């Protein structure tokens, strides 16, 4: 019995340790989540090994022969044993509960000078706003390291959910209420990540993603400055195409996107001709008022009608130039 137990425990431990079950942590919150994860894992390895080795041992040792019609001993119970396996698991799970509650409270703290970022979700795109940086708007989430970021989040239509896997934290965005979440990117883990929507939100749910760029504080300040001076990469049509969520639904060869929720955008000239409009007027109208002309085979009301408000005039112009092939 002990031998089987040890073998099972070693095998299970190897599975737990050798496979990288969690992504490389990029936030302080994820570090603490990892701690709870390992705390629970140690307890679970013990319980799992116990149960499985008793099953294996019993089957090997107590198996009746083919013609053995005898009954086992009439043991009806053992009060001491029953108390043990009621009390010990209770103590273990309460220990997990206490550790979890402490970590939960720590993961909700935003520190002394958090950066506030407003998050707006709609089917099927993310938008970000930096109120302390003169309401800078962006379709790409750019964060500094070494400082807590407090996200204040709302949804324009249905429930979405905010998750950057390497940062651990997750929070739904709910129409009608504002939800918040704290993430503290770790220094030394600058890089690019992906924000994904994890709550089923309709046709384009699977591709409702946004790019996340984590920079040092200096890098972040430089990015803010660049954005505010109006230059930089953020306003190019190609960047807007991705950040505003267009690529989540539309296939467009120059952008390398192949989603098929909305119409293909590689033959816009032909569509404009059919609608009897100049190409750039047609494209702009289709972005701002998507319900005006509906491509055959597609339904009205799927594409959000709010891009006229959520994108700046400059971004829309850049997008039109990009789509008509007249941009940089």
């Amino acid at each position: 019995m002990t031998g089987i137990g040890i073998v099972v425990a070693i095998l299970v431990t190897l599975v737990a340790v050798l496979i990288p079950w969690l992504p490389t942590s990029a936030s302080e919150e994820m570090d603490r989540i990892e701690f709870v994860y390992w705390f629970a894992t140690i307890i679970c390895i013990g319980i799992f090994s116990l149960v499985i080795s008793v099953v294996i041992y019993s089957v090997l040792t107590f198996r009746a022969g083919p013609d053995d019609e005898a009954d086992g001993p009439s043991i009806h119970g053992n009060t001491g044993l029953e108390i043990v396996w009621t009390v010990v698991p209770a103590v273990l799970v309460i220990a997990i509960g206490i550790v979890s509650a402490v970590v939960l409270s720590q993961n909700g703290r935003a520190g002394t000078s958090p950066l506030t970022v407003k998050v707006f979700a709609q089917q099927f795109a993310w938008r970000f706003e930096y109120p302390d940086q003169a309401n800078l708007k962006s379709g790409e989430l750019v964060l500094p390291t070494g400082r807590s970021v407090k996200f204040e989040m709302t949804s324009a239509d249905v429930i979405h959910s905010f998750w950057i896997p390497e940062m651990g934290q997750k929070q739904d965005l709910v129409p009608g209420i504002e939800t918040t979440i704290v993430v503290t990117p770790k220094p030394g883990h600058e890089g690019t990540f992906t924000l994904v929507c994890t709550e089923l939100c309709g046709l384009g749910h699977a591709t409702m993603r946004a790019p996340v760029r984590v920079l040092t504080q200096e890098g972040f300040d430089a990015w803010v400055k660049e954005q505010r001076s109006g230059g930089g990469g953020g306003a190019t049509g190609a960047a807007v195409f991705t950040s505003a969520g267009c690529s989540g639904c539309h296939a467009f060869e120059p952008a390398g996107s192949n989603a098929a929720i909305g119409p293909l955008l590689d033959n816009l000239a032909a569509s404009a001709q059919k609608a009897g409009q100049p190409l750039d007027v047609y494209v702009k109208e289709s972005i701002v008022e998507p319900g005006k002309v509906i491509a055959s085979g597609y339904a009205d009301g799927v594409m959000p009608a709010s891009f006229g408000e959520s994108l700046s005039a400059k971004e829309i112009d850049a997008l039109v130039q990009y789509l008509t092939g007249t941009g940089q």
Partner: protein
Amino acid sequence: MSVVEHGTSHDSGHGAGPWAPRPRGILMRAGYVRAAWCAGLFFLIGMYIVVAIRWLAGWDPVYDWNIITVTGALTMAPIGFLLGLGAFDYWLYWISGRPTRPEDHSGHGAYSWKDYFKVNTDHKVIGVQYLTTTFVFFVLGGLMAMLFRAELAQPGMQFMDTQTYNGLVSMHAALMIFVFIIPAFAGLANFAVPLMLGAPDMAFPRLNALSFWLLPIAGTMFLASFLAPGGAFATGWTSYAPLASEQPIGQVFFNMGVQWAGASSILTALNFLVTIITMRAPGMTFWRMPLLVWANFTTSLLVVIATPFIAGSQFFVMFDRVMHTSFFVPEGGGYVLGYQHIFWFYSHPAVYIMILPGFGIISEIISVFSRKPIFGYRLMAMSLLGILVLGFSVWAHHMFVAGMADWLRVPMMISTLLIAVPTGVKVFSWLATMWEGKIHLNTPMLFALGFISMFVIGGLSGIYLGSVPITVHASDTYFIVAHIHYVLFGGSVLTIFAGIYYWFPKMTGRMYSERLGKWHFWLTFVSFNLTFFPMHWVGLVGMPRRVADYADRFADLNLFVTISSFALGASVVVFFYNVVVSWARGPIAESNPWRAMTLEWQVSSPPPVFNFEEIPQVVGGPYEYGVPGARHAVLKGGAAQEAHV
């Protein structure tokens, strides 16, 4: 008295006698023809009520197909169908003052295969009706899973658009939960519980028949949504507002299908409660009831208390769409999270509705195939009640990232984690029951041991999900998909298989093939793990659930999972082959092939139409294996008493 004698002695309802029914033509006789035209007629009545009101009020359009669908097709037509089939005949005779026959057994028991397709009041026939119907939905739900797994074999979209994908995912879950697992347990219990209690039938046999016939209506309604303009409901089985009130009309097929399935559950649960409380044989005290009966007693309490909440939640979502109420519309003062609170107040207890009957099945099997009494019988029964009580205090653990009141999270976490205690008691008691026993590894026992192993994995991943910080990372990912399948497939479905193999000789009077049963077990066990275990990893490292497309880095593993899922699908073919062939020409079963003590094994296989010649006298516990001279009950003569009918 044999089966045949019983049949003829109660057959008087068919022929002469003071209450003989008037002979009727095919159109007016209870049956499928009358069901068809009654359904059509009731649809038209529902439709023209809507049309008349809209015309009188001057609303445009007069023919509003959204509302006609809800009223005519999804409410009135099913009532017409049931009426035509004859489910209400007895009550309508009684209401209208026409002669009724309290001892009418004309629709009771099966004398030909055709009797299984009629409104039948015999609990054993109804049990088989439940099982065959639910397994049709199981196959359909499984095929849908294989379809969307095929789409997930590669990133990008290959075979279908995303609306179809979301529809298949939602349909898979709706079929498996509402018209497979929950009613399959109701079917097994329908067959076994009255026999185990020493009762001739359920307390309300006609209500029992009605409960069954509500079920195909629910399943057909779900499936019919594929034909609706815009496609099937596509918001997951959770159907969260406000997405659910903005989707195409297929969504209301879900909202209404849940009503019919829910009504079926509630009526059956009431029937079980009354049967268990009032129809126990003399001497069958609560502490002498088999644990399967305890499990269904507890489950029925859960159903009766919780199911009205999901009915409410689905009505509210539907009202938001068709009546423009604003239960969950923030612009109208509604509260979006209110939906989730009401939904999960049912749907968390529903998890126990889907596992407690399985616990009961496993307790029977472990004890019989280890030839030992259940270890700690009273604590086993009490732990069921513990799960019942705690089960109502944990619903918001599905909402840890939903944005609900912060303070609720820690109390809900503690109560969630504490559920591990009564569940652990059950697992440890099963292990102790096996300890030093005489273990026979027949197919039911293999499934029981497979269940314990898999359910422990599902239970332990549940510990992770009980902890709020871990859930904040893992919720809405494939980790959840893995967890729910370890609990509902590794848990519930394996117990359903175990139960079917265990009672197969009693239900059909024939033995299944042990060799094929063991093949079925090992193929299922291995391919199940290959399919679902990798999902833990893919979820934790970043793949959300319910996605038609995913990042390229998850491609290899998804291909592997898809191939494994096809193997899992194929393993079920072995089961069906075994069941069908054995049912037709398997060796004749003895009345007690497992040498079990509970009452259903003390009568012939299959049992007589009214179960017992005389109501048995219960004289001891149901699991007294190894106790010299111990008996659970005395049948025939002796201290026999009047029937409780």
